[in-house]
């Protein structure tokens, strides 16, 4: 257990290192002179002397090796540089936006769990019957809806035409409803399908047949005997769904003017604010990897067999 844990942690650090090297490489990817871009953002005329002075100040004229080494050393100390647009520390910019995204992602996550478990259980329970087919078609449709368009539709119908909920922005709990619904729809549909498949797989096991032979009612078999055994893949899936939600938040936050990390990503990319983009990528990667590691550990608690076989926690 400890050995696998240490190995996983080492692997995590290695991957995070590669992410940070990649993040540094973004400097090269962004065309144009950052010094010029900064000056333009500050609404100052970029005359050559000023550009040269700023390049000196940012250390842009040093050799690439020196720059990357300096960047890595600072990154290890938690200093990812300053935003080129606002001048604030890049990590502080991310931290300032984090609560809004956590709130949105957290609520969406609850909706995903609720809807996917309901849909998966109902579909598996009614396998081959009309409810199963309806759910199948409904999920394929939901997965096919681009989330920004779903958001626009919801805004247009619920907020503008009927006027039940606020159009956009963040504030009261009512502001949260439409973005959370938009963000969770696709992931919920996808996971409902996966849960259905997992449940059907579990239902084919011997202990289920025994429970059936014993004469237990189907509902009890499904909820007490099948669902707990479908839990480990479900936990893995929930961890992955965090990636869906964070990735989707880039789009959904923009649609709903939700002041979170997703919106910050778009404005930073559009404004070529590389330090903030780097800070976002590193933070999100670290969070995502830790959540996956946590899911793995939880699975080993739920199902000790995973530990003995030394296998990965996926089905």
């Amino acid at each position, binding site marked *: 257990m400890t050995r696998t844990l240490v190995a996983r942690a080492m692997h995590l650090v290695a991957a995070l290192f590669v992410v940070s090297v*990649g993040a540094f490489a973004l400097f090269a990817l962004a065309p144009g002179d950052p010094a010029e871009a900064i000056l333009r953002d500050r609404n100052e005329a970029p005359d050559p002397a000023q550009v040269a002075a700023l390049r000196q100040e940012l250390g842009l004229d040093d050799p690439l090796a020196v720059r990357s080494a300096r960047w890595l050393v600072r990154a290890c100390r938690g200093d990812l540089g300053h935003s080129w647009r606002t001048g604030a520390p890049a990590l502080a910019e991310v931290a300032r936006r984090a609560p809004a995204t956590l709130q949105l992602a957290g609520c969406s996550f609850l909706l995903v769990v609720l809807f996917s478990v309901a849909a998966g259980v109902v579909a598996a329970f009614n396998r081959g019957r009309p409810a199963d087919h309806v759910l199948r078609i409904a999920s394929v449709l939901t997965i*096919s809806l*681009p*989330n920004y368009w779903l958001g626009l539709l919801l805004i247009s119908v619920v907020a503008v035409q009927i006027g039940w909920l606020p159009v956009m922005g963040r504030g009261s709990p009512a502001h949260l409803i439409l973005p959370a619904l938009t963000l969770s729809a696709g992931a919920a549909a996808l996971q409902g399908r996966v849960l259905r498949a997992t449940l059907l797989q579990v239902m084919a096991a011997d202990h289920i047949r025994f429970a059936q032979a014993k004469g237990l009612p189907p509902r009890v078999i499904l909820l007490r005997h099948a669902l707990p055994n479908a839990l480990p893949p479900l936990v893995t899936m929930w961890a*992955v769904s965090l990636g869906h939600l964070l*990735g*989707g938040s880039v789009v959904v936050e923009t649609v709903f003017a939700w002041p979170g990390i997703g919106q910050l990503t778009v404005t930073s990319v*559009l404004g070529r604010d590389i330090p903030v983009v780097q800070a976002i990528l590193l933070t999100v990667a670290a969070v995502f990897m830790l959540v996956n590691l946590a899911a793995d550990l939880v699975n080993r608690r739920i199902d000790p067999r995973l530990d003995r076989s030394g296998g990965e926690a996926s089905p």
Partner: protein
Amino acid sequence: MIGNRLLIVIGSSLMLVLGLAALAAPWIAPHDPLAADPALRLQPPSPTFPFGTDQIGRCVLSRLLWGARLSLGTAAVTLALTTLVGMVIGLAATFGGRFVDRAIGVAVDAFLALPGMMLTMVLAGLAGPSTVGVVLGLTAASWAWWARLVRSLALSAREQEYVLGARAVGVHGPRLLLRYILPQLRQPLLAAVALRAGWVIIAISALGFLGLGIQPPAPEWGAMLQEARLHLATAPWLMLAPGVAVTAAVLACNLVAEGAQHLGERPPRELL
């Protein structure tokens, strides 16, 4: 489950219709997709303009049809490039020896440590914003998914008995790859292409919508939705048409993928 074949038929017919519309756009579009006429701005649907006109008086239907060319064409190029890159890297990991495999493994893990959509937005946005930027950004963001899939498929293909037999009698190099390994990968890779196609179409239009992808005035569906957004209350038809188009294209791919998935082998879905 009944209807797997039906789903595939419906999905591929929808794909065919959209593909034909895209190819025939220059002949069937009633107007020039870029010709603006301020006198005709925000017209509701009428016989002359079946889907109405947009905020500077361009024909929405014509833009939609030309947009099919742009959106679906970009998606096709992206898919082809990503599959190719992923295959080369995945096969290199399988046959390139232990060190290459390890190095590729770490890179793949690093790329998969980030939510695909977020990485795509960042890479495509910084590389572009343009059509080439979209293709390169999407490829750079999703090669890892393909490399991992190809590696796992090739690893199991390599251990098949007839492959072991061929190697035992001295078949190696390109011949082993082309005659013995690749034919085994064709089926699962095609299923994976159908599965990813919908995602790629959504990503391209989302990039256009966010202003990080194909730029206006090009009639890209996502960019059209972004422009329509400002006229949500006064001209709702502007928002419906491109949205339905994107959904139809994605639905076509997903129907095929859903049907194919339950017909035979099931490709890994967890990274979608």
